[in-house]
């Protein structure tokens, strides 16, 4: 799989680390949230069959994080 690093261009996926789902927001007013909300933040992530918005880091290259949209069935990537 070739990953399009926004700074280095297309590189083999072995150069990257996967960061999982993007857009996971830290709970607002963290002291006030209940256990169920914490559980959702810590453990629950989208797992779509199809388009997934996700984080990658180019560990063996520029070491920068970025967001991609990738299809989890075809592995086709459309840069976000």
């Amino acid at each position, binding site marked *: *799989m070739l990953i399009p690093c926004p700074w280095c261009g297309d590189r083999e*996926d072995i150069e990257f*680390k996967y960061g999982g789902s993007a857009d996971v927001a830290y709970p607002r007013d963290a002291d006030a949230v209940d256990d169920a909300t914490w559980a959702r933040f*810590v*453990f*629950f992530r989208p*797992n779509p*069959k199809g388009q997934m918005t996700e984080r990658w880091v180019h560990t063996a290259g520029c070491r920068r994080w970025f967001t991609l949209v990738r299809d*989890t069935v075809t592995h086709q990537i459309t840069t976000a």
Partner: protein
Amino acid sequence: MAEPHPHPDHLWRNPEPRRSYEVVIVGAGGHGLATAYYLAKNHGITDVAVLERGWLAGGNMARNTTVIRSNYLWDESAAIYEHSLKLWEHLAEELEYDILFSQRGVLSLVHSQGDRREGMRRVNANRLSGIDAEWLTPAEVKAFCPIVNISPDVRYPVIGGTLQRRGGIAKHDYVAWAFARKADEMGVDLIQNCEVSGFDLDGGRVRGVHTNRGLIAANKVALCAAGHSTVLADMVGLDLPIQSHPLQALVSELLEPVLNCVVMSNAVHVYVSQAHKGELVMGAGMDPYNSYAQRGSPHVIEDQLAAACELFPIFSRAHVLRTWAGIVDVAPDASPILGLTPIENLFINCGWGTGGFKATPGAGWVYAHTIAHGEPHPLSEPYALERFTTGALIDEHGAAGVTH
């Protein structure tokens, strides 16, 4: 090596789905079929359909490396996997089908002081749980499995190993067919090419499933879809802490008998056994990214072959015949989720991740109990979905091996 077992004349019917059932199981993999079998056998519930979107046992059941063991660290895991192993030990007679279950021993190699402490701790924990476990020195490793390279002149020398002699392998297809045949014999309908597209809900209660072959009503619906669990759960608004990843495996060409046991190495990361037919069956870590593609990245294969060739120099001239991947459903603590859901009459069994095959009879047994009684089996009680809220996780990342 054993002679191939002759196939029985008849395995199962291919019935048209009826309009309603007492229990509908979604997913005719190993766990779904075992669940149907034990529902009929242990609980007398035979008004059961097992729905399968593809063909029977064509998902992870057809794609795993068939390792069977019960040497897990935590009490909860040891209990359920040991229950499963005890069922394996009598499964062939019970199902009247030679499933080629072979207790040839599972040897886990140790390459570092960290590994060694973890391995010894696990041996002791296993013994306290009544599970057979032994610590082996490098010389004992060599005596048990002569082709392992114990030379100190490699990048990660073998400094010991743990051994569960009762562990081993079985022939995956035969296991599925054996459960299917017996379940069918007792009246369970196995319905292939029947894909669930939605759920029939009445308030907070499920009362059937929509499929490409029409609406099928059910008093109870039991999800058993491994890598596709969240796809089903999303249809009914149920959130699961599950991520789906590719887990690759490969086989060599058929070889003369060279490997007499299952060998695992978490540090250099490969696990390998030789199937009855003669091919070396190998697996390693799952690919890190989410995927439903049933294929993974070549560098994962490259790494595991490098590890295998260092541990077993004799393998260096074997050829890779075929590689493939399954879709594994992984929970944050690498332990399964099995039990009730917030939706009445909807049950969940998923999260077995990289190690579900060994649990096939055990998971089927406790899931059938859970469905029949509407409450968890004592062995599966710790595996409730609520544990992610209460924090009572069963963290098997370490002791399970990175994959298991």
